């Protein structure tokens, strides 16, 4: 087994380059690859177009399509495992989509090791979230639509990870944007929800521009946008071109994955129903950026600069998110901060190049499970607390909600990276890999892990432990089985996913043909790094526990330090965007509207007024006196004479 801690400890040097696997024709179990996407898409179509007729059974159909997709995904996995490790790329071309001149982009899918794990994550976690939503959205009058949107989300995400070319990926990419827009703004009668949805879409669009430009640059450079064809010749392009492509792809990833500086939408996105947050943060949307970077590894491998930028962005976001998570009192916003931070880890890992790609994906998978767990748990709490999201109003919920408490605890330990919970395996691998490349990155990873310990313990303590700080009329109770069963499953997942993937699933070996892997021995035994990390995490946890165990003010204290205040304001991201982008745009718009109305249209109307005015002035010459007419004629005669004479003179 390559790439594991054991191998690293043994001081082995690993250097496996990614291979372009031959694209096998989709036959046998793979022949219905397209069904994977078609299932949730059909579900979405039926639910959204069917109207009220489907109200009664619609949600169940929504659950069914995704569950069926999950089952098929498992079948596919089995099928894929049956192939040799270097021949696990299966392609299916449906039809030519865009073909002009030398440009072609088919509607074609590619299932390989990387997309397979994403498909599994998306469909399985997605299915759990769907099931959970049956309970969570039980009383919402529009829940049919909700399931329609969820299905659309899943379909788009599957398209994103299964596309075999960048342009088709782009369709899924924006489809995810659309679905998230719909879901974040699901309660759109709330102006804040509608605004948050718009914000998410627009910030995503900024990233999309990056993707769109990247696709163009890829085509202009390589003459194709099909993954395998591009990657086959990626190394031949000039480094500057590759750097540009890499940076543009990073911009795209930053938009989708809420990385600095496009992170501002993520916290607002908490306006959506909680299952949506779970879906966005765990299984879909935000993972897309990481997918894009890892998928494009052939490009990044050839450009150190772009990789470094990826790394830096990951580190910045990792801290930003962690700090924000530490200060937010809203449970969902705090979780959102944690997502930012965890995705920061993955981007950091991806920024390490071949050293880290695998671990980025590994962490993505474990995170997918425990973050879904956390969000669904939070949703369960919120549900129980009559939509109260302020953790200062929680406390002592353990007794009331045992299942939620336990599963949340499992997920909390997982995200903190406590062994042997799943997060430990993936996060430690990232930290190790980071130290291989740069001590700074490694230390950053450790520190962020410490902060993770702090904010997760803070959240956990404020919610489940300590004293009850509930508002009146609160009678928290455990949620219904339809919600708790997914929690239980995810809770178990939070414990075991890491180990299962690493030891039983050989996630590293599985992914290496796609991503490649480089490993060099670290100067110190890996256990040293692990211990240091663990100490930091526990220290953070201890501080939080001590601080929040007992006296938590119901009103957030105002006499806090600058960092806390900044973190409460999400590091002033809105204010900064406002000053740098929004306000200038408004000003320019106002100016341009003025230019248009008074300037351009003013000129047009001015010409018209001038013409009319000239007419009126000339009209005055027509005095009505015959003698003045005669005078004009004499003047005319003179004019004629002069013109004739002038012409004749030379």
């Amino acid at each position: 087994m390559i790439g594991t801690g054991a191998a690293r400890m043994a001081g082995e040097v690993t250097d496996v380059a990614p291979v372009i696997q031959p694209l096998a024709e989709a036959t046998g179990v793979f022949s219905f690859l397209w069904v994977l996407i078609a299932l949730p898409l059909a579900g979405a179509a039926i639910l959204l177009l069917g109207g009220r007729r489907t109200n009664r059974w619609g949600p169940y159909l929504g659950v069914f399509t995704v569950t069926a997709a999950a089952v098929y995904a498992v079948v596919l996995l089995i099928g894929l495992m049956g192939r040799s490790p270097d021949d696990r790329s299966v392609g299916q071309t449906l039809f030519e989509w865009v073909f002009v001149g030398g440009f072609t982009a088919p509607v074609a899918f590619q299932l390989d090791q990387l997309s397979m794990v994403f498909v599994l994550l998306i469909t399985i976690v997605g299915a759990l979230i769907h099931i959970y939503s049956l309970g969570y959205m039980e009383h919402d009058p529009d829940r049919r639509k909700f399931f329609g949107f969820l299905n659309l989300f899943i379909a788009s995400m599957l398209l994103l990870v299964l596309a075999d070319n960048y342009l088709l990926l782009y369709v899924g990419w924006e489809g995810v944007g659309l679905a998230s827009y719909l879901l974040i703004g699901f309660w759109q009668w709330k102006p804040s929800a509608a605004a948050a949805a718009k914000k998410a879409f627009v910030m995503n669009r900024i990233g999309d521009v990056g993707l769109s430009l990247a696709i163009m640059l890829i085509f202009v450079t390589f003459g194709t946008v099909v993954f395998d064809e591009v990657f086959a010749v990626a190394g031949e392009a000039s480094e500057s071109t590759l750097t540009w492509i890499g940076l543009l792809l990073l911009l795209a990833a930053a938009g989708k994955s809420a990385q600095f500086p496009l992170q501002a939408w993520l916290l607002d996105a908490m306006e959506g129903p909680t299952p949506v947050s779970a879906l966005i943060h765990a299984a879909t949307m935000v993972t897309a950026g990481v997918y894009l970077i890892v998928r494009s590894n052939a490009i990044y491998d050839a450009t150190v600069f772009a990789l470094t930028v990826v790394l830096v962005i990951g580190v910045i976001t990792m801290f930003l998110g962690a700090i924000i998570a530490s200060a937010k009192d809203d449970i969902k916003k705090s979780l959102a901060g944690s997502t930012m931070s965890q995705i920061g880890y993955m981007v950091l890992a991806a920024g390490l190049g071949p050293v880290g790609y695998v671990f980025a994906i590994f962490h993505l998978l474990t995170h997918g499970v425990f973050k879904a767990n956390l969000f669904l748990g939070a949703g369960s709490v919120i549900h129980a607390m009559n939509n109260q999201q302020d953790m200062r109003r929680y406390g002592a919920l353990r007794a009331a909600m045992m299942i939620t408490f336990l599963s949340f605890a499992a997920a909390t330990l997982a995200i903190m990276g406590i062994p042997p919970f799943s997060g430990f395996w993936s996060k430690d691998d990232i930290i190790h890999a980071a130290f291989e490349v740069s001590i700074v990155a490694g230390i950053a990873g450790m520190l962020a892990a410490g902060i993770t310990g702090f904010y997760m313990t803070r959240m956990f303590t404020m919610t489940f432990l300590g004293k009850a700080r509930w508002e009146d009329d609160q009678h928290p109770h455990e949620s219904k089985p339809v919600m708790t069963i997914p929690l239980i499953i995810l809770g178990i997942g939070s414990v075991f996913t890491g180990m299962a993937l690493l030891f039983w699933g050989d996630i590293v070996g599985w992914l290496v043909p796609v991503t490649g892997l480089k490993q060099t021995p670290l100067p110190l035994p890996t256990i040293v790094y692990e211990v240091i990390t663990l100490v930091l995490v526990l220290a953070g946890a201890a501080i939080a526990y001590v601080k929040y165990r007992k006296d938590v003010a119901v009103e957030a204290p105002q006499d806090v330090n600058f960092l806390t205040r900044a973190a409460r304001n999400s590091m002033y991201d809105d204010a900064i965007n406002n000053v740098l982008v929004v306000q200038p745009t408004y000003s320019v718009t106002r100016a341009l509207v003025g230019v248009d109305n008074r300037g351009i249209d003013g000129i047009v109307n001015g010409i018209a007024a001038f013409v009319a005015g000239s007419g009126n002035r000339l009209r005055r010459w027509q005095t009505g006196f015959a003698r003045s007419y005669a005078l004009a004629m004499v003047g005319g005669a003179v004019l004629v004479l002069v013109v004739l004479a002038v012409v004749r003179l030379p």
Partner: protein
Amino acid sequence: MNPENYVILAAVLFTIGTVGVLVRRNAIVVFMSIELMLNAANLAFVAFARMQGNLDGQVIAFFVMVVAAAEVVVGLAIIVAIYRSRRSASIDEPNLLKY
């Protein structure tokens, strides 16, 4: 005598006629000024006929006289009609049509 002088005289008469049209108010006088212009042309025709040595110009003069006479008939009729309805022969007075 040099026939060119007659041409110059014709030009002077024509100018006087033109100025008359421009400065006089009475329709009859304006009309007379126009007749003066026509006759200036006649004089020019006759003078040129002399210079050219053919008779065309003189014949033309006769034609013009007849035409002028016809013009007088029409012109006076109109002026008289205006005078009757407006009690004035001023050419500036009918000034309803303008701009």
